């Protein structure tokens, strides 16, 4: 017999058990968002290719051709695409997961399930786009006849890292957005600025050595460097302190994100 106790303040243990019980809902909500996203569009899923492709061309022209940034001997489009792969995932998933609770307010006010499911599943939805883009990268690498180095084996670690950054930031924004809709305006800024202060269109090696550590405070720097290192084997040895900073930041972000989300979750239905 299942026994449930509802008290002022709520119960923690129950929550994680419920999260497990509702594990299939992660999949269903992500599936819903994917199904819905391209309904009544003309080219459908192709959109998740067109966007990165066009951005890649623009960034290549602006930074590679006009800005004459160093490519380290690699085809510039490839360099850009390896940076864009995690960046696009981060920016779209952060925007979508940040908005996820508000977008699903009808669910929140009418039915119980751990709200973490909503935000996490919206990150998962964007992850599918990430995989499609990754396939395109494979095509691009074949086109440029560029074989990945042995460091490719570390790629899953950096994928996990970018997932962590995104989830951490997404949880914070989603929970804050419930009460402060201001974040609806803040998120587009973050995405816009982030593109320039992260090494998407250029390599982080162009940053003067003495600023490298400061620069690495942006966790996406470590993530993007990591992706380039794994996929292209950037000539310069990777900037290890930068990775370390990124890893610590991700752990803090995810832990604090879950903490804040859990803290405010109980009042979501009252505030939303």
């Amino acid at each position, binding site marked *: 017999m*299942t026994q449930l106790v509802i008290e002022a303040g709520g119960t923690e243990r129950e929550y994680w058990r419920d999260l497990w019980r509702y594990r299939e809902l992660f999949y269903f909500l992500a599936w819903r968002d994917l199904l819905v996203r391209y309904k009544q569009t003309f080219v459908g899923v192709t959109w998740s290719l067109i966007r990165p492709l066009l951005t890649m061309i623009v960034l290549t022209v602006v930074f590679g051709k006009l800005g004459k940034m160093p490519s380290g001997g690699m085809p510039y489009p490839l360099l850009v695409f390896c940076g864009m792969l995690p960046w696009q995932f981060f920016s779209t998933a952060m925007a979508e997961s940040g908005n996820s609770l508000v977008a699903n307010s009808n669910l929140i006010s009418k039915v119980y399930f751990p709200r973490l499911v909503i935000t996490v599943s919206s990150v998962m939805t964007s992850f599918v786009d990430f995989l499609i883009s990754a396939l395109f990268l494979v095509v691009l690498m074949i086109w440029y006849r560029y074989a990945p180095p042995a460091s490719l084996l570390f790629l899953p670690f950096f994928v996990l890292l970018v997932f962590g950054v995104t989830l951490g930031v997404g949880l914070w924004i989603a929970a804050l957005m419930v009460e402060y809709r201001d974040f609806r305006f803040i998120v587009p800024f973050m995405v816009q600025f982030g593109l320039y202060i992260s090494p998407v269109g250029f390599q982080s090696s162009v940053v003067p050595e003495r600023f490298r550590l400061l620069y690495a405070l942006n966790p996406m720097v470590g993530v993007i460097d990591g992706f380039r290192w794994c996929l292209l084997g950037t000539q310069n040895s990777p900037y290890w302190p930068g990775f370390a900073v990124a890893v610590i930041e991700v752990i803090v972000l995810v832990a604090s994100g879950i903490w804040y989300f859990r803290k405010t979750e109980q009042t979501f239905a009252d505030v939303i």
Partner: protein
Amino acid sequence: MSGAGNTFRAPAMSNPVISIENLSKRYTIGHQRANGDGMRHAIEGAMRTPLAWFRSSRQKKLRQVDFWALKDVSLQIKRGEVVGIVGRNGAGKSTLLKILSRITVPTEGRIRIDGRIASLLEVGTGFHQELTGRENIFLNGAILGMTRAEIIRKFDEIVEFSGIEEFLDTPVKRYSSGMYVRLAFAVAAHLEPEILIVDEVLAVGDAAFQKKCLGKMSSFAQSGRTVLFVSHNMEAVRTLCQRGVWLKDGRLHKDGKADEIVEDYFNSTANEISFSCANPDYGLIIQKVVLKNDRGEESSQFRPGEDLIVEISYDAHKCIEKPVVALGVLGINGSCFTSNMLLDGHRPDFLEGPGRITCTFKSIPLLPQSYTVKMIIRAANVKDLIVNYQEVAGFSVVGDLAEYGYKGEFLTFARHSTPVVVPYEWRLPDGTIAAVTLNRSTADFEDRISSEVGNH
């Protein structure tokens, strides 16, 4: 408290399955909305000098109003009980259900629930307009807590119950509202909880469908499971529930047999409704709905056979074209009569600015009982509801039936009789003709005739 009618059930039933102790829920109204620009105040508060921060937080306190949606509610519900919760809008019914369904947490108090609980606060929660019926069955099922395997196993049953087989692969946005509701209820009806919580779902859908829902719920109840049911449909509460709980202003007002609670509640509300509402989407405000008698006086008491005038005062901030207004007069057992523009077709061309609509029900043929008035206003497309309220006004019919020529020995039974009496006439074996009507002026007249006929 009377739950005693259930002692014939399983022996385990002596312990309550739901035990609510001193439950309270406080809402703080107006703090984040009144400030308007959300986060600025939070940041400002932190940035300013301590003194200014102190002052601003004190001002903030002044703006906040605490509102206890529930206060010190204690309730024990036993296994197999079917409990109807009644109360006016804002009495705390929905808050109680929301806490029981774990959508929101209580401010004080504790609830213990033994058994798998499922709640249905809305039909079709999580349905997505763009998805097909088939896809929505899976989505909705998962949201309500079914596993994938469970949904697959019950899929055929759900489809059959909903009766929409042929539209299974059509996006639900193309469904009629009836189909939508049927499908949604079909999914919910196949949850298999031990305790079911239902909020007002029966207010939607057509009569046949409502009957089906009620049937499903009563078969659910008969299988010995526990049901908590909130409704404005007094008849449903009476037929479905054994026990009634009446919430008033967030407190437990009365607890007892469903019949008695419903009757008490209905009689008391009928005389004290003051209604207003707004639908911001359509820019329509219903300022008040008042009842008047044929002398134009506001009243909540009418005599049998008197005219009943329902006067709706509205203010339309946007132009609403061709609305459909429908009024219904309900007794404790359900609808008595209605006026409905959907049928008679006398729709106004538009509503704009402040105005009034009145409807006069001529010489109401009602026995002395309590009644409520419901109101529905639909948009030009008929499908969209602008206003849909069960209790916009209430009144009681009072009067001595003897004055209408009633001379039976059991006149008190009139309180429980079917309330509508159309004029009728008995023809007895000895040739006596006796006409009965609640329209008094003619009643006097007919009385005279029938006594003349009788004297022959």
